């Protein structure tokens, strides 16, 4: 049976305890806010994208559960130095992983260490916790000015 440790891997517990790239990015040229009304998670992402369309820096702040905090922390680590196009590829691959059937292997090549979050597939009520930061970042990078809600 799927064990709790398959969801709460040590990497996730660590990122929850000491989230990377946590705080405000000032100045920043893109930002957005995301909410999960179901559980009260709230997230703010900031990023700077340079003239070559490369994400130079990305930070986040807010409050959420271990899954949402670790997911945001891992996301910021992975996105630094990536292009917009690469972000979109990662976004799609992450979304596929979080919502796919447990028998489908995640795309290791694209996702790299983000695959530690594959366990959320077994916990339907927690998928939104893992994807909130990605949707929020998408809103920021596209300057859509929409507050992201997972409901």
């Amino acid at each position, binding site marked *: 049976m799927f064990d709790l440790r398959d969801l*709460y891997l040590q990497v996730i517990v660590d990122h929850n305890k000491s989230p990377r790239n946590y705080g405000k990015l000032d100045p920043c040229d893109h930002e957005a806010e995301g909410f999960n009304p179901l559980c*009260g998670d709230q997230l703010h992402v900031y990023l700077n994208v340079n003239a070559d369309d490369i994400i130079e820096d990305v930070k986040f702040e807010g409050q959420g559960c271990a899954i949402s905090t670790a997911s945001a922390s891992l996301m910021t680590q992975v996105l630094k130095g990536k292009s917009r196009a690469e972000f979109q590829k990662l976004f799609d691959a992450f979304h596929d992983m979080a919502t796919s059937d447990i028998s489908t292997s995640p795309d290791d090549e694209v996702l790299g260490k983000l695959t530690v979050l594959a366990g959320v597939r077994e916990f339907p009520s927690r998928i939104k916790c893992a994807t909130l930061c990605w949707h929020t970042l998408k809103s920021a990078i596209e300057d859509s000015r929409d507050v992201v809600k997972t409901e």
Partner: protein
Amino acid sequence: MAQLLKGCWCRTMGMNYDVSLIRNDFPILHQQVYGKPLVYLDNAATTQKPQIVIDAIGSYYEHDNANVHRGVHALSERATAAYEASREKLRVLLNAVSSKEIVFTRGTTESINLVASSWGGANVHAGDEVLITEMEHHSDIVPWQMLCERTGATLKVLPINDDGELCMDRLDSLLSERTKLVGVVHLSNALGTINPIHEIIDRAHAAGAKVLVDGAQALAHLQVDVQALDVDFYVTSAHKMYGPTGVGMLYAKEALLEAMPPYQGGGDMIAMVTFERSEYNALPYKFEAGTPNISGVIGFGAAIDYLNSTGVKHIAAHEQKLLAYATEQANAFNGLRQIGTAKEKATVLSFTIEGVHPHDLGTILDREGVAIRAGHHCAMPVMQHFRVPATARASFAAYNTVDEVDALFVALKKAQELFA
């Protein structure tokens, strides 16, 4: 019924409350979740249903299904009689003067919206005030906000203290001749606080305001006498008192209901319709447009039978023991902060655990078979008061046991270890 009453009476007399017999009445409890015995501690969200409620609904569909108040045939007469019998059971339960004062709705939320829309629309104007409290459920906040936006009235809020009790010393200064209505929760779903509604009603009446009491959580734990309280509006939901979802009730004094315009138009709420005008039906039908939730209302009646035969007093005493035991455990649990420590409390243990978000707690406990609620409990202002995004909440009912409280704390310990 006599048989049932006799059986139930024996098992719940005074000290001899036999929880294992109570558990036998609830088929859903006898299952495993992820290989562990189900420990259902999410009763403030919804209670489980005893067999007699399930059977009442099944039996209605098997034998009596027909529309109410219109058929001349046997089935319709039986359905109508059962439907109206539930209304009478509620009248007796609440000690209302007349069953005309009992309106069936979809639940507490619809009942409050009905009052805000119908009574509020006719009686609340620009410059008036509606007073609610900081511990209200969103369903007793948003309808009043909407009313105030429509009319130009102002929404005022009676604050709570850090134990999760109303600041009663602030009540009189917030009441004035502008206050048209006071909305207050009887038993807080987020904190477990039992509010001094009698005193609030008296003081509100002295200021000339009407009072709506949100009893969504209350009737499974407390005895309510609407005449003794002199309450104007009392609302509740069946599903939090062992009845089905999707059905609830509005109690209102007959004179108020009489003067209120209809909430929705349609069938059953009219006496006569022409294209020029319609004449509305008598109370309470004026407020029950359309085919109602007949099976739900009949199930509601069966839930009241169950409460009566088991005895709310006995259930409440049992739950108080569980709550006292759980509170003692909580006090001794390292890193646990209780949210809601009022002197007058029932059924609810709301808390946070340092280093573990309530949402993670909910998932971890679930895998141990323990069902709790994690979140803001539709009371975001309460979360804001205590500066927490969410809490974990265990809430007890008639069928919970001391062993289940132990299972809760064993699971909490596991969660803490997982995050250590």
